[in-house]
């Protein structure tokens, strides 16, 4: 994952990267692994400034999928911080930049929720339901949004 220059740029430019290696950092690996319940490698967590987990990636992913998950994680962190306007933009960016990844339908769902949280307009949820009718309609996230179709 980390050999792709796009991944290197994304990690270096958007995050503070920390690595704990099972052999090279044995004590920290075990301590942090217990604290964050990391039970497999690779496990990559996106943490907010308080050290709270905001997104988890377990197992290897090809570069394009990994990039989409990094972007999704950054959006989720903004959402958890209550910055719903920024979160919506970041979720929309995931869809635009990585439309054919597993992150895209999840981002479409949370973009709608972010807009609803920012505006208190339930129309945002119905609009998201309609978007799933047009794209990603066989995804789990479309099922989750189906309740907004009424």
């Amino acid at each position, binding site marked *: 994952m980390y050999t792709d220059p796009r991944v290197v740029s994304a990690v270096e430019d958007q995050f*503070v*990267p*920390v690595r704990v290696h099972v*052999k090279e950092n044995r004590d920290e690996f075990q301590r942090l692994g217990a604290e964050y319940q990391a039970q497999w490698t*690779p496990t990559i967590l996106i943490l907010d400034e308080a050290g709270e987990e905001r997104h988890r990636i377990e197992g290897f992913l090809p570069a394009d999928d990994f990039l989409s998950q990094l972007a999704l994680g950054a959006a989720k962190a903004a959402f958890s911080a209550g910055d719903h306007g920024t979160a919506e933009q970041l979720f929309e960016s995931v869809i635009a930049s990585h439309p054919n990844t597993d992150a895209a339908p999840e981002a479409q769902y949370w973009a709608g929720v972010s807009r609803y949280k920012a505006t208190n307009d339930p129309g945002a949820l119905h609009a998201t339901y309609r978007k799933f009718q047009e794209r990603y309609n066989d995804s789990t996230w479309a099922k989750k949004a189906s309740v907004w179709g009424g």
Partner: protein
Amino acid sequence: MTTAAREITWNHDLNRALEDAAARHRRVLLDFSAAPM
């Protein structure tokens, strides 16, 4: 002249990284790895 490939500069101290993240308004990417060194 060739340009050296950019590499990730890994931190190994989470507490220090969290302080850095707060100062720079970034998130932390914490990687639990078993990759060959």
